[in-house]
């Protein structure tokens, strides 16, 4: 190791020791400038909240804070279909004889699920399927005997 190499290695060690303990001042441009994002972001959030509440009032609906934050309203509805099929045994085979009812159900989710009201809104009753010899002239008993 030459003397120059020794000098170089020692200088690097001393420099690292010094640099590590220094308290570096803040970026001089940062001291002068205000970062408007810190002001604009909360202001935009408050403006959005106020606008949302105003729109609710304007539309003559009950203000619902959950709606503003993107949750489902407790007035939300769910559509369900309930269908009852009646199957009739003829000899060994089951035949679909008729669809009794098909109804659309609006299930309103109240605050308490136990208090949920079951409101059948629309009731559709399908025409019964005629499967007798009097209706369509087919003797179903003969068909099923094979």
């Amino acid at each position: 190791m030459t003397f120059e190499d020794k000098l170089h290695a020692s200088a690097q060690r001393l420099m690292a020791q010094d640099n590590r303990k220094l308290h570096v001042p803040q970026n001089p441009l940062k001291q002068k400038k205000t970062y408007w994002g810190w002001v604009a972001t909360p202001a935009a959030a408050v403006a959005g909240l106020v606008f949302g509440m105003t729109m609710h009032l304007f539309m003559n609906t009950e203000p619902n804070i959950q709606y503003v934050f993107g949750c489902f309203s407790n007035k939300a509805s769910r559509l369900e279909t309930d269908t009852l099929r009646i199957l009739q045994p003829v000899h060994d085979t089951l035949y679909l004889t008729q669809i009794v009812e098909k109804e659309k159900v609006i299930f309103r989710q109240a605050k308490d699920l136990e208090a949920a009201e079951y409101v059948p809104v629309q009731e559709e009753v399908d025409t019964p399927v005629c499967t007798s010899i009097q209706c369509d002239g087919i003797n179903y008993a003969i068909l099923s005997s094979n």
Partner: protein
Amino acid sequence: MFLKSLGSLTDEELMQRVAGEDDDRAYGELYHRHARRLMGFFFRQMNGDEALAADLCQDAFMRVWTARERFLGSSFRTWLLTIAYNLVRNHYRHSENQRQYELFAKQSGEMVADSNIIDKMTGEAFDQALRQLLEKLPPESRLLFSLRFEEELTVPQIAAIMTLPEGTVKSRLHLLTQTLRQKLNQHDDIRR
């Protein structure tokens, strides 16, 4: 280039953004990369005056911002060290430190040096002795030492910073190395 994050850009690419688009985020990235090292450079030139080093560091970076349009696209680090070098020289021009260093230079040849002592030294002892010597080094020599051995610049880079011919830099470096060798061999702590 647009989609690249600032951290992946080179110093020169960042500086081009600063110069061309007044991009203060790119400037912030440059500051983050170089401020500590630059402050350390000032700290050693100012003999451990941390407050003064911090002021000079901020001053240097303010000059980077105000003179951003004069950046020619070469090495940012060399450009930054040129600014730093001029700040240190201006500082010494207005101070009275120069005289005491002349005394140091005169003492160089007075004692007989033992050329074997350096070879027997441990790394820690060498560091301590060198630190003490560097504190007494004249400002111009201290700057030269920093640029060569701490900042690891080449002779042409140092010549560009100091606005000197390369031959002059080489001869000054040779003289500096010889002086340091001689002084280290005379060092009291080492001779014990």
